[in-house]
């Protein structure tokens, strides 16, 4: 348990992705089965222990220490799990060794409500503060250590020197503590064969069209279709087992029962999940957000925000894996097979006819529907290959929106950027022209070069008004301020932001040293962009 606790403590404070990958891979390399497998399950959200609730832990500690001293402690630390882990009285019984992670996971898995308090107290007695914290987080769910399931799988791939796609493809057929997976990754056994059905197939991704890319390509080799602004998903049905996966292979079936209920064909589809009803209405991304990140979904939600799948590709039909076929052939089969599915839940992504890049450029700039965010280009002869190969597929997005905003606050970055003010909150003007005020509309921490970062960092240090820990407020008034041209993909209404809007994917596109702060944009300009 100590190794797992150390790993969590270290991961949560390590900002860099590569640093996290190394910590994880080293852990998998040096910790034996079954502990490492249970750690993997904890990191990928594969463990759930319903018997342990925070209120029970509260009761346990109140039986062990003065309420007033606990209140002072909790007030100071702010986090219940952390407070309990720190104030839990140390046991002087050095006879019993601390439990291994596997012992803890197996104990928690069998735990009933009634016996939970005694068992948990017994475990806490045998652990040190850091391991107590890990136990409480593990038992109550939600490690929140900044490691996604995908990152954990990438660390596995690095550890076993395999492609992450191979691991993702196997993943849903495996169970904790994943001993067959580790044996294969260490070269001690064959690749595990899964008996599970409706497995995830790693998705194929596109490169953005770069400067000069298109001139080198023959338009005749490519088919084009609209790029819809929903989320990319994969729907799989095999022997009646139905699953919906996110782009990264997370099983999101539970949130979309309406779609899966009407998915009655043995196939694996690649498409865009959207809200609405094909042919009648295609909803915006903010409509879709109502349905995202939910474990369960209410009847009201299902009625107000029904989802459907706009199909791009067909990966498997019955026992036939179609991924090696050319795109044009897969598309033809998809077109033939789709009528078998419910027309309220599934439709075909329409192709965009074009004879040359200029014509396509014209169509990209003037899409026929507001929920289109660009076009996709797919080589007609391209096989479906996991990952992001260069050449067969391109995404050519609509030009971003831009706004001129004024820098208001700057925060120090993390890791390599910890000595730079690199995260910027910016605002636009509102109120009367003779007494305008800035209202924050977003935050961005990339889009600039290293040289530009140095310049902004110096500007922030030279124009600081106030300091709040790692944040500085920067002089920002009509006669004095730094104007940032901010690019973003779209705008949503937001009740959580003072300005009433939230930007999607904002980044700094240019530094406008030349532009007087008073000439930055006004909030009305942004409000006019809100679609509905």
């Amino acid at each position, binding site marked *: 348990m100590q190794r797992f606790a150390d790993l969590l403590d270290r991961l949560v404070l390590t900002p860099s992705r590569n640093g996290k990958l190394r910590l994880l891979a080293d852990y998998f390399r040096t910790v034996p089965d079954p502990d490492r497998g249970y750690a993997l399950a904890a990191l990928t959200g594969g463990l759930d222990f319903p018997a342990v609730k925070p209120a029970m832990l509260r009761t346990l500690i109140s039986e062990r220490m003065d309420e007033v*001293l606990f209140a002072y402690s909790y007030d100071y*630390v702010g986090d219940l799990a952390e407070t309990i882990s720190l*104030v839990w009285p140390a046991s002087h019984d050095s006879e019993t060794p601390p439990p291994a992670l596997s012992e803890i996971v197996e104990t928690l898995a069998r735990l009933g409500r009634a016996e939970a308090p005694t068992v948990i107290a017994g475990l806490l007695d045998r652990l040190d*503060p850091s391991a107590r914290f890990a136990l409480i987080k593990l038992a109550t769910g939600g490690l929140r250590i900044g490691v996604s399931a995908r990152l954990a799988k990438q660390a596995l791939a690095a550890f076993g020197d395999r492609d992450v796609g191979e691991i993702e493809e196997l993943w849903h057929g495996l169970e904790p503590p994943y001993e067959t997976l580790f044996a294969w990754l260490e070269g001690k056994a064959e690749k595990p064969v899964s008996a599970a059905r409706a497995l995830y197939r790693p998705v194929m991704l596109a490169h953005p069209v770069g400067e000069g890319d298109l001139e080198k390509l023959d338009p005749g080799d490519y088919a084009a279709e609209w790029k819809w602004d929903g989320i990319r998903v994969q729907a799989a049905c095999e022997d009646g087992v139905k699953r919906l996966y996110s782009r990264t292979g997370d099983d999101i079936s539970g949130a979309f029962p309406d779609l899966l209920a009407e998915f009655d064909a043995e196939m694996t589809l690649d498409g865009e999940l959207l809200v609405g009803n094909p042919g009648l209405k295609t909803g915006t991304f903010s409509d879709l957000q109502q349905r995202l990140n939910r474990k369960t979904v209410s009847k009201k939600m299902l009625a107000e925000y029904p989802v459907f799948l706009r199909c791009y590709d067909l990966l498997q039909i019955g026992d036939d894996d179609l991924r090696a076929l050319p795109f044009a052939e897969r598309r033809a089969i998809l077109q033939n097979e789709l009528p078998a599915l419910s027309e309220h839940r599934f439709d075909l992504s329409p192709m965009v006819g074009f004879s040359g890049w200029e014509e396509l450029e014209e169509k990209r700039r003037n899409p026929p529907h507001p929920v289109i965010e660009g076009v996709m280009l797919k080589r007609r002869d391209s096989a479906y290959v996991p990952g992001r190969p260069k050449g067969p597929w391109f995404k050519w997005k609509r030009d971003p929106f831009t706004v001129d905003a004024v820098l208001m606050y700057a925060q120090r970055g993390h890791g390599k950027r910890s000595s730079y003010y690199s995260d910027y909150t910016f605002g636009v003007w509102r109120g009367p022209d003779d007494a305008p005020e800035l209202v924050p509309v977003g935050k961005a921490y990339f889009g600039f070069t290293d040289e530009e970062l140095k310049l902004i960092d110096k500007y922030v240090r030279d124009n600081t008004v106030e300091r709040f820990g790692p944040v500085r407020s920067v002089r920002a008034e009509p006669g004095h301020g730094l104007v940032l041209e901010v690019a973003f993909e779209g705008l949503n209404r937001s009740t959580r932001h003072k300005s009433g809007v939230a930007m999607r994917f904002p980044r700094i596109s240019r530094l406008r040293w030349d532009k007087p702060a008073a000439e930055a944009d006004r909030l009305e300009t942004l409000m006019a962009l809100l679609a509905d």
Partner: protein
Amino acid sequence: MKPHDLLHPRPAGLYCPPGDFYIDPVRPVERALITHGHADHARAGHRHVLATGQTLDIMELRYGADFAESRQALAYGEKLSIDGVTVSFHPAGHVLGSAQIAVEANGLRIVASGDYKRHPDATCAPFEPVRCDVFITEATFGLPVFVHPDPLNEIRRLTASLAQFPERAHIVGAYSLGKAQRVIGLLRAAGHDAPILIHGALAKLCNYYQGQGIKLGELAPATDEEGIVDRGAGQIIVAPPSVFGERWTRRFADPLNVFASGWMRIRQRARQRGVELPLILSDHADWNELTATIRETEAGEVWVTHGREEAIVRWCELNGIAARPLNLVGYEDEAE
């Protein structure tokens, strides 16, 4: 004589009327007794200063030879009478030269702890409990959440990280008096023999410690040579914590911020300061040390100062010991 008549707080600091002196005054006074060399306790500008020889040396290093008009050294355990008040200094285990100050008159003895700790520390004399009627205790870590772990285990987390991330410069933030030398000493005890790079602000004090017979091994200036690529990769650099987030760190290879402090027990503290590797290493007593020490002094009354007074007062109440907070101002309980 009531305790209050022997010692009580004034704006300038803790004052003894019959002896007409202050303990660790925060403003210039006629006569000052100084517990230890940290800047919030030992200030320049008093007329006469009484302290241990090492504390006087440290004050001279920091403020120059003219930090006071006159100075007098008192060895641990030695007694001195000031206008009928007997004072003596006793090891506090906090930093080199640190002392508790016992003040005694008419059979009443008050001990002002200054800052202290009970964990073993090879860089200074260990704390000696002194029986007294009133014990004035610090309370920097006066909450049950603060239980400091074994220092050598903490330092091993640093050497392990150095092995795991050999391409990165490990910058250890540690206060220049006491903590820095303790970190270096612990690294040596853990078997780390490589030269340790130190920030310029640490040089004088490290030299002084070495002159006092404390072995710190080979130290080198962190910023000596210019134009080195990958400077500090796989090396330990000890610097004052104020360098975190400052431009000084940019010269090193992908700096990894390490902070050696008792505050690192609280995760949010580490997060706020951008610390990647927190080491829970303190020169102040933790909750268990504070409460054990209060018992050992057998004091009937406890005055609590700088820190989380309310929790220690509560503990004293629960254990039948009279206690009250002593609202002294001017000490930085955050500086650790």
